[in-house]
């Protein structure tokens, strides 16, 4: 039972990271209807910025995270302006390929700037876990911080999209861009804002991910990126609570699959569950069922 609880905690913690990344995917998809494949690599950039801030300049970890978030926000806006904005009217495939190009660019840029050698991400939190029940239930501080960060971010986003003017503009844009524009909403600024928020979250997720799995290379972001993307679809892409649900479930499935079934097959099981879910609910767990009109 305690072993099970341990896996549960690990799963929720990993899932929280996926959920934070998935938020970026889902918000961008909701508003720009594009699969932003470069999102995973923004995670990697964020992790590198934080790594250098902390290990080379000896800044405190929180400043490192803030710096990473700032750099990634700027990067996200820059990518959107240079690569995606000129393609607003283009086919979704053209945008997808451009996003892949941006992803390659970030990965290879990072490789040239920072070399492909593995960097060991510094431990921000004490590696001594909190032991409960006579040391049988171990909770790492990193896990607690990750779950807390996820909850705080989620609450902030729900408040932001529901209560603030900018958040309402975002929802209006994702529903109908033309109508939003007619109502005087600056659609381009709203889309930029979405990218900015998504990228800042990616930076935080990058730091949290590397705190749990401290191996940092230029391709670090690729796999969590794909998984988080899967999580967003799993929960229903475009839905913010869906990203949370999808992320946490995906993390739990991954940890349980590798603990109880097979480590090597954990990825395959994650993706198999995704396929089954999509077959039963084609728009994800919390996705809106769109009725087709002729």
């Amino acid at each position: 039972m305690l072993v099970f609880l341990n896996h549960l905690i690990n799963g929720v913690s990993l899932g929280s990271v996926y959920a934070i990344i998935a938020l970026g995917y889902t918000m961008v998809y909701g508003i720009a209807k594009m699969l932003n494949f470069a999102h995973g690599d923004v995670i990697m950039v964020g992790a590198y910025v934080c790594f250098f801030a902390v290990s080379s300049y000896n800044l405190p970890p929180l400043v490192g995270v803030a710096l990473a978030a700032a750099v990634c926000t700027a990067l996200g806006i820059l990518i959107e302006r240079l690569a995606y904005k000129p393609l607003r009217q283009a086919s979704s495939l053209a945008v997808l390929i451009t996003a892949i190009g941006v992803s390659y660019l970030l990965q290879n840029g990072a490789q040239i700037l920072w070399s492909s050698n593995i960097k060991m991400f510094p431990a921000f939190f004490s590696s001594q876990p909190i032991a409960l029940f006579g040391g049988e239930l171990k909770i790492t501080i990193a896990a607690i911080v990750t779950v807390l960060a996820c909850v705080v971010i989620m609450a902030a986003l729900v408040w932001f999209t529901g209560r603030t003017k900018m958040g309402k503009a975002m929802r209006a844009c994702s529903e109908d861009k033309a109508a939003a524009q007619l109502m005087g909403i600056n659609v381009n600024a709203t889309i930029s804002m979405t990218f900015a928020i998504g990228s800042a979250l990616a930076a935080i997720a990058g730091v949290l991910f590397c705190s749990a799995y401290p191996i940092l290379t230029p391709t670090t972001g690729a796999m969590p990126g794909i998984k988080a993307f899967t999580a967003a679809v799993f929960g229903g892409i475009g839905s913010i609570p869906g990203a949370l649900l999808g992320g946490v479930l995906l993390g739990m499935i991954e940890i349980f699959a590798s603990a109880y079934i097979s480590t090597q097959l954990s990825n395959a099981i994650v993706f198999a569950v995704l396929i089954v879910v999509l077959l039963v609910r084609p728009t994800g767990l919390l996705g809106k069922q769109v009725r087709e009109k002729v």
Partner: protein
Amino acid sequence: MNKLHLSKASRVNFATYAMVIAAYAVLQFMGGAGILSATMRGQLVPICAYVAMALSLNLTVGVLGELSLGHAGFMSVGAFAGAVAAAALPIPSAPLRLAAAMAAGALFAALAGALVGVPVLRLNGDYLAIVTLAFGQIIKSIVENLYIGMDSRGLHTSFLENRLTLREGGLMILNGPMGINGINKISTFTAGFLLVMLILVVIFHLVGSRTGRAIMALRDNRIAAESVGIPVTKYKLMAFVIAAAMAGAAGTLFALGQNTITASKFDFNTSILILVFVVLGGQGRMWGSIIAAALLTILPEALREFADYRMLVYAVVLILVMLATNNPTLQGFFTSLFRKNKRKEAAGK
């Protein structure tokens, strides 16, 4: 005016065949004359395999209109099934063994295509894309944990861990994450050329047929097509399975031209690479796929002088091409150019 009048589609088809044959003849001649560098000669079989992959994906993306992000999965199935078949089949003649291996690769990939397609093709758009992505990952995980060996009693397989106890003289063919080592390289440029030609014939015939028109009607408007009685699942599945079989044959061709293959060679990045060929070449435009696949396979080699920067340059080229081809000003310029030509033609008549 007894001139043979061909439709625009068949003119394009013949031009495509002619282009492939000419490229084959020129490269074969250059190879014979020793002008081709060793790296270039080594690239010929992979180029054919990638061209075949691009054509096959273009059938899914351009003709059927569904985005697939896991096409390398079918290539993987074909590569491993074909390489195991080539190692296990007791056919002395290399070309025949290659043909049999390709058939095996195509068959297994088609089976995988049907297995995925039946449940999955009910989904649309981006969701279908995600499921194909997931499928590609699953294939990779499965192949990485598969062990196949052969001895006097026949083929033996084992999953997850190597539990094979082979008799004396037995041979371990597929060794889990290590892949297949010491492949007998029987793929040739001629075989690659023939495969590309065969795929072109199949695609052009399919597209020109009643079936092809039904498939394209589904792409253009699924609901309208359904309402005039086109069975959606049947035609979608047909196109998907044919594309998977082609990818399988291409995978076999690729695998039998390498010393070693591992499952990680056919990952998400490979799927994306092939998608890039298709999009850059133009969806539904087969000659475009051929040129894009060939050029982009050579490009990283040609960028050798940039050394570390070559993948960076590749990424920048990719983004710039996408921005340029989707720029309304440039597009307007090109359409007006073509229109002028057409007007001239009309005036000439």
